[in-house]
């Protein structure tokens, strides 16, 4: 049992989920929220983000590489579980299952989302602005897909934050983990409101 590669990989998976991916998601949803202040405000914010210095390196090291590691190793984790929420329908077990289902859904959603936005910009087929999102979200199916995507992401982050605190030995006692549940529930609610408000601003 002296091979601790799996231990290190799981720790890295937990760490990357919060830093940088969790921080990036929070930032992304907050910047999107500019849409509620009108077309001009959103375009200005999007322009600022798209023209950060060294933006391609920021994207690669803060987003693409950590996200791909988290996604692919996460799929492995999700498919090695044998879910049993039927007989053992305790809250944490249901959240355990939901964490795995939202994770799998997010791999699909994020792949599509990146293809539809960042990739189109990269090949010069579109520009990342208010119009782009307005076009995408004018389709009611796409709108529902995005609402589901945002809620999955905020849930997966909030619940992942809860297990991050356990994995890193920050919340040890039963009481600490209970308070952490309340805190991460708040994170889920706040981030969901920010994310959903931005989506509605495009329609």
């Amino acid at each position, binding site marked *: *049992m*002296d*091979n*601790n590669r*799996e*231990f*290190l*990989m*799981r*720790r890295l998976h937990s760490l990357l989920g919060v830093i940088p991916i969790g921080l990036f998601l929070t930032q992304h949803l907050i910047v999107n929220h500019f849409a509620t202040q009108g077309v001009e405000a959103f375009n200005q914010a999007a322009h600022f983000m798209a023209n950060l210095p060294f933006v391609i390196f920021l994207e690669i090291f803060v987003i693409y590489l950590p996200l791909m590691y988290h996604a692919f190793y996460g799929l492995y*984790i999700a*498919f*090695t*579980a*044998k*879910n*049993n929420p*039927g*007989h*053992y329908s*305790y809250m*944490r*077990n249901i959240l*355990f*299952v939901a964490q795995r289902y939202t994770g799998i859904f997010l791999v699909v959603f994020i792949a599509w989302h990146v293809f539809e936005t960042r990739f189109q910009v990269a090949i010069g087929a579109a520009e990342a602005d208010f119009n782009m999102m307005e076009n995408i979200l004018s389709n009611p199916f796409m709108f529902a897909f995005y609402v589901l995507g945002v809620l999955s992401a905020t849930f997966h982050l909030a619940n992942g934050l*809860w*297990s991050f605190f*356990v*994995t*890193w*030995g*920050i*919340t*040890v*006692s*039963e009481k600490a*983990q209970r308070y952490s549940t309340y805190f991460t529930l708040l994170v889920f609610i706040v981030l969901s409101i920010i994310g959903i408000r931005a989506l509605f601003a495009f329609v």
Partner: protein
Amino acid sequence: MGEAAKTVIFEIERRNSTDENSYWEKFELPYRANMNVISALMEIRRNPVNMDGKKTTPVNWDMNCLEEVCGACSMVINGKARQSCTALVDQLEQPIRLQPMKTFPVVRDLIVDRSRMFDSLKKVKAWVPIDGTHDLGEGPRMPERKRQWAYELSKCMTCGVCLEACPNVNDKSDFIGAAPLSQVRLMNAHPTGSMNRDERLNAIMGEGGLADCGNSQNCVESCPKGIPLTTSIAALNRDTNIQMFRNFFGSDHMVD
């Protein structure tokens, strides 16, 4: 009084040996006050006739203490793993469905082979090594309050219920489950046991160890002894994280 005799119906998932397919058999027994699953199984053994009126083989199961301290009689009762000695018929929905804990190799009927748990205890060195060539004298004293705290962890009877309830203990993973992990916390808390704490922490940082826990917390919900298994796991998470840095950078505090 004067009513038709009450009966209890059991559905039991049986098999003749590890490699054979399972089949379900139904039994109807006369109700007796305060009967539990084991006394019902004893009744079936006494008169092995199934619900179709056919004579069958007696159902095999494992048991020993009959007071929820030995861990031998674990089985899946109405979908949940628990001890059959404390499963009271009055508190169970009928028909009562009995299944073996299929996380383990099934020997026959309801008997499973829990060897993997004992192998795990060996892997994680869940003992206090004191044997040597000469008398080492008395060890350090343990504070009484700590002893009382540690006693709760020592109640583990290796019954296997936490492994059966865990979604991450299955044939696709080699996760050792909560019970042996909690024993590492117990042994590391012991003043003499802590002299080898780094060896145990390194053992559970290996394959199938602590990292495979997915925090579903079914173990703590299911543990018949009420052992704070998830607190043990979180405490070990903290300890192994520190151990990870100590391993990498070196430390003067490997064992204290």
